[in-house]
C-alpha cells in the first residue's frame, strides 16, 4: 500500500487497556478527499480509533500516518489539531460557560498562540464566517446564550458548527445524528456530503438510514479490526455483519 495519496493511513494498529484489546491489528486507509462511514457494534473500537488518530490515545503498536507522511503517534492533541484534523465527539463537548458565538470563535481557524489571542479583534471575515455557521446549525437566535443552556441535540449541532469553524482537512465525526430527529438527520447528511466535496471525512454512525443517505464506502469494525468493507449494500449483506451488528 502506498501512503502517498492517503489522508489517513493506519496499519497494524493495536491498543489495549489493562489487557483488553480494544483495537486489534487494525488497518484502515482513507484517500484524500474521501468520505468514509464506519459502523460496527458497540465497543468495536470506533471511538478508540478516533482517539488514536487525534492523539488522545497512544497505540501500543502500528503505524498511523496523516497526509501520507506525518507520523501522528509522535504528536500531541494540539499539534494534530493544528495540522488539520478536527473531531466531533460522541458525547457533545462544548464550552458551557461561553456563548454559542464564543464557542465558534474559539474554534475558528487561525493562529493558536497566546499573544495573537491577547490582542485579537474580530475581523469582518471572521464575523461573516460565524454568521454562516450559525445559519447552518440553526442556532442564530441563541447566539448569545450560554452553551450550558442548550438541549442535548442543540449541543450536537454546536459541536458540528465548531468543527466547521475549524475547517480541518480531515473531519472525524462520531455519531453526529444521535438524538436528532429524522428531518435533522437528513439535513446533517446533506451537510456532510457538502463538506466532503473538499474535505476528507470519517463518519461513525449507527443510523443506517443516515449511512445510506451518505452513499459512501462503509467499513464495519468488530472487536478492534475490520470485519467488512465496501458499499453499504455489500456490507449489510455480509452474514457476519448481520450477526454481530445489524441483527435479524
Amino acid at each position: 500500500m502506498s501512503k502517498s495519496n492517503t489522508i489517513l493511513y493506519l496499519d497494524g494498529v493495536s491498543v489495549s487497556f489493562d489487557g483488553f484489546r480494544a483495537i486489534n491489528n487494525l488497518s484502515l486507509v482513507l484517500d484524500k478527499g474521501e468520505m468514509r462511514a464506519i459502523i460496527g457494534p458497540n465497543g468495536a473500537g470506533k471511538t478508540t480509533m478516533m482517539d488514536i488518530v487525534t492523539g488522545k490515545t497512544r497505540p501500543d503498536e502500528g503505524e498511523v500516518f496523516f497526509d501520507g507522511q506525518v507520523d501522528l503517534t509522535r504528536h500531541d492533541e494540539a499539534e494534530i489539531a493544528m495540522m488539520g484534523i478536527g473531531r466531533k465527539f460522541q458525547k457533545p463537548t462544548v464550552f458551557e460557560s461561553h456563548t454559542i458565538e464564543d464557542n465558534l470563535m474559539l474554534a475558528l481557524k487561525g493562529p493558536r498562540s497566546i499573544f495573537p489571542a491577547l490582542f485579537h479583534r474580530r475581523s469582518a471575515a471572521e464575523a461573516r464566517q460565524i454568521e454562516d455557521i450559525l445559519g447552518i446549525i440553526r442556532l442564530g437566535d441563541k447566539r448569545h446564550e450560554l452553551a450550558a443552556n442548550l438541549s442535548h441535540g442543540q449541543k450536537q449541532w454546536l459541536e458540528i458548527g465548531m468543527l466547521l469553524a475549524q475547517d480541518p482537512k480531515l473531519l472525524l465525526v462520531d455519531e453526529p445524528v444521535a438524538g436528532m430527529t429524522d428531518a435533522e438527520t437528513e439535513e446533517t447528511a446533506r451537510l456532510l456530503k457538502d463538506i466532503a466535496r473538499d474535505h476528507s471525512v470519517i463518519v461513525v454512525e449507527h443510523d443506517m438510514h443516515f449511512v445510506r443517505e451518505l452513499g459512501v464506502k462503509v467499513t464495519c469494525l468488530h472487536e478492534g479490526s475490520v470485519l467488512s468493507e465496501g458499499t453499504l449494500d455489500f456490507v449489510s449483506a455480509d452474514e457476519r455483519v448481520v450477526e454481530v451488528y445489524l441483527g435479524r
Partner: protein
Amino acid sequence: MLEVSDATLHYGAAQALRGVSLKAGAGKITCVLGRNGVGKTSLMRSIVGHHRLTSGSVAFEGKALDRSAAYDRARSGIAFVPQGREIFPLLTVRENLESGFAPLKRADRNVPAHVFELFPVLKQMLGRRGGDLSGGQQQQLAIGRALVMRPKLLVLDEPTEGIQPSIIKDIGRAIRYLRDQAGIAVLLVEQYLDFCRELADEVNIMDRGQIVHTGPAEDLDRADVRKFLTV
C-alpha cells in the same frame, strides 16, 4: 398510572415547559416526540424529581409526587434511564447494577436474568468500570440498571441513542416484554421515529414546551403531525 397535569418549568427566566399534561398508563408504552430543545428531557426530569415544577403536578398511582424527593419517587417504583447515560463512571458494571438494589427488599436483591439476556455484553464486562465502557455499552448499562429496580414505571429518555441496530431491536423486544409480561408503564422519549412507531401505544408530540398532539402511533404518518418533527 402516571399523570402530569398542567406542568410548567422555568430555568431561571427561561421557560421550558408550558402547561404540559400527559398520562402514561400501566401496560402501555407512551411515547414523547419532538424536535431538539422542545422540552422532552425537561419533562422527564420533572417526572422523576430532578427538577421541581414551577406549577402543575405529577401524580403516580393516584398519589401526588410534587413534594417528594427523587429517591422517594424511585422507591415508589419509577425508574429512569436518562439522556446521556449517567452511569457511575468509577463503579464497576456490577456495582452500577447493584446500585439499583437500594429500594429493594433484601430477598429481591439480585440482578434479574433478563438483563443479561438482553445485554450479554454486561455479563462479560461485570468487572470493568462503567466509565470505561463504550458509549453504546454505557447506554445498555443504564437501561439494565433501571431494570434491576423492578420498576412499575420506566422512564426512558432516548434509550436508543448510540446503540447498534441489533440491540435496538432487542431493546424494543424488551420494552414490549416488560409491558406485556410485567404490565409496567413505559414512558419513552424518542427521536427515532420507526422505533417509536413500532412500539408506541400512544404518542405525544411536543413543541416549544407544550404538548401539541396526542394520539395513537399511526398518527405519526399524518402530515399535520409530521410537521412538528421537521425542521
